């Protein structure tokens, strides 16, 4: 019973981490090539941390005999609601997107979901796709992502105590995604074989996600993500140990130098056949990428290698969409919809 419950929660964790990635990618891809350097750097560094979190959650799930899934019904749909009530939208780089990232980076930030009549959404809000973790949580569910992971850690300790640590961590170590196939993106992968390593992996997610909100700098002396987004929000840099809002030298932010994609686009918005074909291509690549990731979580960790190629392809194909104005939406362009394509087949060909 408790193993199944843990598997459900960890599967939800994998989906949760995956679901945060497309909103960041939309912000990143919509920034035009020149300018907004700091915004590009901080968004990119957050994306790769979220990828690491997904891998860490999958390693823990594999360690207890689970089979992490990210395809089909497990793929995110937008708007996507996280267990703490945050709703993730696919938005272009914009003040609203930065506010959303500030919220995701800091659970203490007060959160006001965009109203359905917000000009950016312009009535384009769809039925929420509630993350599975919220559905599967007992009662009202956790209130923050940190609390969600702490609940998993507590349950894991309890289960290890009841059935024995070895019994709980019965997964095949060959299914772990280690440093050979995953490194230098947000940190280092952790191989999970026992309670201690599982705790390490999950705490890494929590710590990277919430950070130490007591200081604006992390252990490496770098400005934490939350504060880098504050620099973007205010267009000013932090200097020294200053807290509060940044007041230092200007940080160049240009919300006009973007591809202004519509919010939360869907395939059916693209009635033009060429545009629809371009959108289908993005979704096929996104789905192939998910298949590769899923394969890498299920005994073929080297499938991470072709997944890198898919990510480049995804970016290039998304930019084709973004470069196209969308008729009927003045001043707005098409954008990637990040929808699952059931017909996709992944190339798992190993370059080795």
């Amino acid at each position, binding site marked *: 019973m408790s193993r199944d419950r843990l598997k459900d929660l960890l599967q939800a964790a994998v989906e949760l981490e995956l679901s945060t990635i497309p909103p960041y990618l939309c912000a990143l891809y919509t920034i035009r090539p020149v300018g907004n350097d700091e915004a590009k750097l901080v968004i990119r560094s957050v994306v790769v941390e979220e990828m690491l979190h997904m891998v860490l959650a999958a390693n823990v799930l594999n360690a207890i005999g689970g089979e992490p899934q990210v395809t089909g019904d497990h793929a995110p749909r937008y708007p996507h609601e996280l267990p703490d009530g945050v709703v993730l939208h696919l938005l272009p780089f914009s003040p609203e997107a930065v506010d959303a990232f500030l919220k995701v980076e800091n659970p203490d930030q007060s959160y006001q979901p965009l109203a359905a009549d917000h000009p950016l959404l312009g009535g384009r809000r769809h039925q929420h796709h509630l993350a599975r973790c919220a559905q599967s949580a007992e009662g009202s569910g956790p209130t923050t992502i940190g609390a969600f992971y702490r609940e998993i850690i507590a349950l894991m300790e309890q289960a290890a105590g009841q059935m024995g640590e070895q019994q709980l961590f019965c997964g095949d170590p060959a299914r772990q995604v280690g440093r050979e196939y995953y*490194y*230098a993106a947000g940190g280092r992968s952790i191989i999970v074989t026992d309670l201690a390593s599982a705790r390490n992996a999950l705490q890494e997610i929590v710590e990277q996600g919430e950070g130490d909100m007591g200081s604006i700098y992390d252990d490496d002396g770098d400005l934490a993500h939350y504060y880098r987004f504050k620099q973007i929000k205010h267009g000013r840099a932090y200097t020294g140990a200053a807290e509060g809002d940044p007041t230092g030298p200007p940080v160049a932010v240009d919300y006009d130098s973007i591809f202004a994609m519509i919010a939360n686009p869907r395939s059916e918005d693209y009635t033009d056949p060429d545009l629809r074909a371009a959108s289908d291509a993005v979704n096929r690549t996104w789905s192939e990428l998910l298949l590769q990731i899923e394969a890498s979580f299920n005994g073929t960790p080297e499938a991470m290698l072709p997944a890198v190629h898919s990510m480049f392809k995804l970016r290039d194909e998304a930019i084709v969409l973004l470069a196209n104005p969308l008729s009927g939406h003045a001043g707005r362009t098409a954008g990637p919809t990040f929808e699952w394509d059931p017909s996709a087949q992944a190339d798992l060909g190993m370059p080795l």
Partner: protein
Amino acid sequence: MIFPEGSTRRTDHKAASETVYDAVIVGAGISGAIIANELSRAGKRVLVLEAGPGEDMDIPGYDDYLSRFYEAASKDNQSPFASNDSAPMPRSTDVRRIRPGHPDASAYFVQNGPFATDTTYTRALGGTTLHWEGKTLRMLPEDFELQTRYGQGRDWPVSYDELEPHYRHAEREIGVSADVEDQAYLGISFKPGYVYPMRGLPLSYLDKVVAKGVDGTKVALGGEEYELKVRPFPQGRNGIPNPGYDGGKGYRPVGAVSTNQVEEGGRCQGNNNCVPLCPVQAKYNALKTLAKALQTGRVDILPQTVASKVNIDPGNGRVTEIEYKTYPEVNSKEYTTGTVRGRIFVLSANAIENARLMLASGLTSTSGLVGRNLMDHAYLLAWGLLPEVAGTFRGTICTGGICDLRGGTFRGEQAGFAIDIHNDGWGWAMGSPYTDLVNIVDDHNKFGADLRRELIARISHQLQLAFMVEVLPNASNRVAVDASFKDQLDNMRPVITYNIPDYSMRGVAYARQTSRRIFQRTGAEDYTMYDPTDYGYATYDGQGYVIRGGNHLGGTHLMGTTPRNSVVDSHQRAWDHENLYLVGGGSMPSIGTSNITLTLAALCFRSASHMITQLRHDTAPAEVAAG
């Protein structure tokens, strides 16, 4: 890799001039960076002078290099770097054909000819490793005893076996991706059980297409038969860390350098512009080592500071100080002079600049060999179109090639060579894909989808082979200085006299023959054409070829066994000046058929431990300090 913020600004010239450092290093490329790092980690205080501009390296600064490259019309090696007349650099686009008796002084090099070289090096923090390709071949054991074995060139004062542990240091520092089983050929040996820091990078699809035709081809040369085989090159770019490295401890790849933590460069992404610049710093550059050295807090650095004269004590030959000229901003004609002092001095400014500085200081050495024996690989290109789509332009610039003709008894008669298969198609020879694009638009009137299809169809069949032909030391190939040729800081410019020796031209001719064989075996149509008006045109035995430089400069202060046959000893210490080291490619008595960086890095590791020993035992510093 964190580049400590403020470290390029915290030292001022006045404070530096009042300090007696353990070591003063001239040049912040790979040699200078390795020595600065090794010495500072041994507790020594180090000052590094860099002629070029040098700001704290962060991602926006690196992206400025990238943007300049992306925007440049010419994509040559120096395209990412702003031109700087205060510390000028040679650039391939400056080279002109030399008419006999009319030296070309129009660019930084004064070229006497008869051959006009387009070799380059970069004067900036990180040096030429910013645009190196990242090939990290070890030299062959036979390369160290060419004279003994083949009666050609010079023997080294160190053997392969003596250098082998330092090769391993260099492979760790650079972060080499390769598999021992691919690299153990022609006598190259490894410590038993050794694995490279990272696993070998895979051959490209193009390599495999070539291998399909070429593998197993037998060629006869000098009475012996050689079998050709496409094999992967060891690469100074991040791949999959080998868990078996360092007795099972594994290896942690070093990512991009910046003043703040960044998450890129940990793994090669297969971009096709390693030269002139890796967009993510997955390719090693010396900034990675320099950043480590600066983290010790014992390394001071003075950028925009050109060493202009080495002063010695005429009584004992010891170097007393180095004079410099520092300029306030790039391209400035203004400068101020000063001096810096150390217990030992290290010139690591590359083979041409080291020689230029010594000669400008009037230091020609007992042997008279400073500046002589200039070497660079002679590159012959051959290009054709494959009958099938070969995926050209996918992958890094070069992943595989043919190494079977690097060594053998034929070297008694003619130069050996290594063959590169270029994943960037006809880029080097013809400027592809940019020239193809212009041609398709301007001459074929294609646009839109037709243009895209035509461009892909054309470039994906391209095959370009680059033959890296050995050039032996020859005293008349040389760097000199002449007071009538100065740069705008009044530093004398390098005057280059250079020709490709017949021994190498015989190798070039055989390379061309080999290219025809390879094209035949792969079914490729040969499009090779050597333009007689090209600056690199050279003839041999009635045939004309175009030769390119390799930026693999060596020989100008070569090492040997006595003060009469060489400039430096086997530890790269000047025979005439006991506290002066001349390091880098200039110390190499021959350059074999390996890109020189790995070997010169190995030599620098070997020299660094010698320097540390010397600093421990040397009692002279008190006198220097009093002076």
